[in-house]
């Protein structure tokens, strides 16, 4: 268990290209077939007791993984603590709500607009606040998340506390239907988005922005001395994370066909952040594992429904105390730098 991450990496390093491609295709195929897992007797343990299993795979599981990956760019890669990530989710959701009900744009056309809106919000929030010290940034982002919710709650033209009902579902695309009974189609959309984000993060990590984020996370002062324009890269990281949150919001709104302020509370931000830290900050696969576990388990143990948040709290404390770097922590080499910084 301790070196699961390193073992996986070693195995991967040992493969040649065709082997890797085959592995990835098989893995994606298996994940894509997950919604059918509830239908067969030998995999029926996956079924969730109260909500439909296919629906759970879309929200919360898929959505949480998507948002956790987005937040991981901000928190895990560049070390900026964002406690108001739900704001971007809400902005995406409300963009879909407003444009979907008042214009003739369909979900696929709204998706880039929602991402853009969230990104602009990220830049507007980031430019002034990313100069701040870490803890202050945490509290300002927390405040921003609440402000977005309160503004939605108090603005009559976007439905105030009742929110926006009857948001259209995506149109039939490539013969795939999207409506309330076809949860599987939504799952595939979310899966494609997740794959795109994974691809994007992998590209960024080996290029200039990734190196800049790594430098900023490990030691800001040194990064400045080495000529990294830290504010620019922080704003980039922040707004890319925001765009992913916005995308999740758009898909979420068109799936539930309804958005309301009480869907976007501080608890969601905390949950997403927990996915990131629980799984292993900075390590994409850890974050995915964290997202799957934290989203799926509460649904699976819904028979103790009243106490599931309590169990969640206890689990957070236990895991953080036993494995402070998360279930699948990042590489040792990177951790060494972080430990040095913490020890100062």
């Amino acid at each position, binding site marked *: 268990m301790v070196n699961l991450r390193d073992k996986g990496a070693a195995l991967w390093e040992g493969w040649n290209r065709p082997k890797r491609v085959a592995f990835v295709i098989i893995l994606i195929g298996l994940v894509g077939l997950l919604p059918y897992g509830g239908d067969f007797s030998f995999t029926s343990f996956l079924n969730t007791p109260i909500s439909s299993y296919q629906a759970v795979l879309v929200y919360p599981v898929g959505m949480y993984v998507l948002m956790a990956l987005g937040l991981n760019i901000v928190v895990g890669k560049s070390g900026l603590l964002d406690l108001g990530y739900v704001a971007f989710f809400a902005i995406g959701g409300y963009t879909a709500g407003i444009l979907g009900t008042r214009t003739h744009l369909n979900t696929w056309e709204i998706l880039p607009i929602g991402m853009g809106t969230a990104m602009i919000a990220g830049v507007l929030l980031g430019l002034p606040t990313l100069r701040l010290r870490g803890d*202050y940034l*945490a509290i*300002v982002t927390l405040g921003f998340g609440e*402000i977005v919710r309160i503004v939605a709650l108090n603005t009559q033209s976007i439905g105030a506390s009742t929110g926006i009902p009857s948001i259209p579902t995506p149109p039939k695309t490539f013969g795939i239907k999207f409506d309330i009974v076809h949860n599987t189609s939504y799952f595939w959309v979310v899966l494609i988005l997740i794959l795109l984000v994974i691809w994007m993060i992998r590209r960024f990590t080996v290029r200039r922005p990734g190196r800049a984020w790594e430098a900023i996370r490990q030691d800001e002062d040194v990064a400045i001395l080495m000529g990294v324009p830290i504010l620019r890269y922080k704003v980039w990281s922040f707004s890319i994370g925001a765009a992913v949150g916005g995308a999740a919001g758009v898909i979420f709104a068109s799936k539930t066909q309804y958005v309301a302020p009480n869907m976007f509370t501080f608890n969601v931000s905390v949950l997403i952040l927990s996915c990131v830290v629980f799984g292993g900050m900075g390590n994409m696969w850890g974050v995915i594992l964290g997202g799957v576990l934290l989203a799926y388990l509460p649904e699976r143990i819904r028979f103790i429904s*009243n106490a599931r948040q*309590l169990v969640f*709290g*206890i689990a*957070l*404390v236990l895991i953080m105390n036993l494995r402070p770097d998360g279930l699948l922590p990042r590489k040792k080499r990177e951790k060494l730098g972080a430990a040095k910084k913490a020890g100062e």
Partner: protein
Amino acid sequence: MNFSVVVNQFWPLLINGLAVGLIYVLISLGYTMVYGVLRLINFANSEIFMVGTFATVIVTRDIFKFTSAHDALHGFKLVATLLLILLASMLFSGVTAVLVELVAYRRLRSKGTNRLASLISAIGTSIMISEGVRILTKSAPVPTPRLLTKFNLISIGGVDIRIDTFLVIISAALIFFMVDRFVTKTLLGKAIRAVSMSEETSKLMGVNLNRVISATFLIGGLVTGAAAFLYMQVYETTVFNVGFNLGLAAFTAAVLGGIGNIRGAFYGGLTLGLFEQYASAIIGGQWKAVTVFSVLVLVLLFKPNGLFGEAIQQSRV
């Protein structure tokens, strides 16, 4: 927008702002002192406050057996009862705070791991406490029996000051004064200040770090418990998530005054309380939280060390 209300209601708003602000001051001490020694946000402080409000209800209702229909208490008996309830509330919150430190921070601190892990562990503790209470109370608001008959104590120039407002202002100011004296004058207070200046050096000087940190949490918890008691005398109802908004406001107050700075928290709390009262009178109560955060963001942008940040070094925790 209604500006005339500020002119018409100037004095009543001022009195309310003082009372709310002083409650913020007390809660923000729980944030600012812990931040001083640990350099971490005490995320569970809002839950420590919540525990205090429930302790007040339980002691009033179940131990003293007061009901909402009981005969009003007078004189010595009233004062003694209130003091006992205050002490109980402080005790419950103080013990909770010490437990929070043990559960959420101690082990991680001794390992010297990353700050985010501590933060998540504190968030987890906070969820644990509030969910526990939510399940026990079935999410329902819980009222406390009224002990103080709410009469107008004095009337100055047509402005009435109610007995509960008066009680809040006087006791909160007194408690703050005591904490301030404690931190500046006693040996333990000196140790707390030393740890907040430099953990390493104070260890070399023979300060028992774990004891000082526990003591800081205890004091923060006691003061937050007192705030909970005072809050209950005015608002008389509590619910499992009562601490959330108050905690955020109190944290804002702490940042306003420069986090880690005890006297700063005093000015920060008062400024925020007054600002909030006038602002919500002008633009409507539902925007209260927004005004609080706008103040926070503006302060952090222009004075990142808080309004009273580095000026009062002497009383820095």
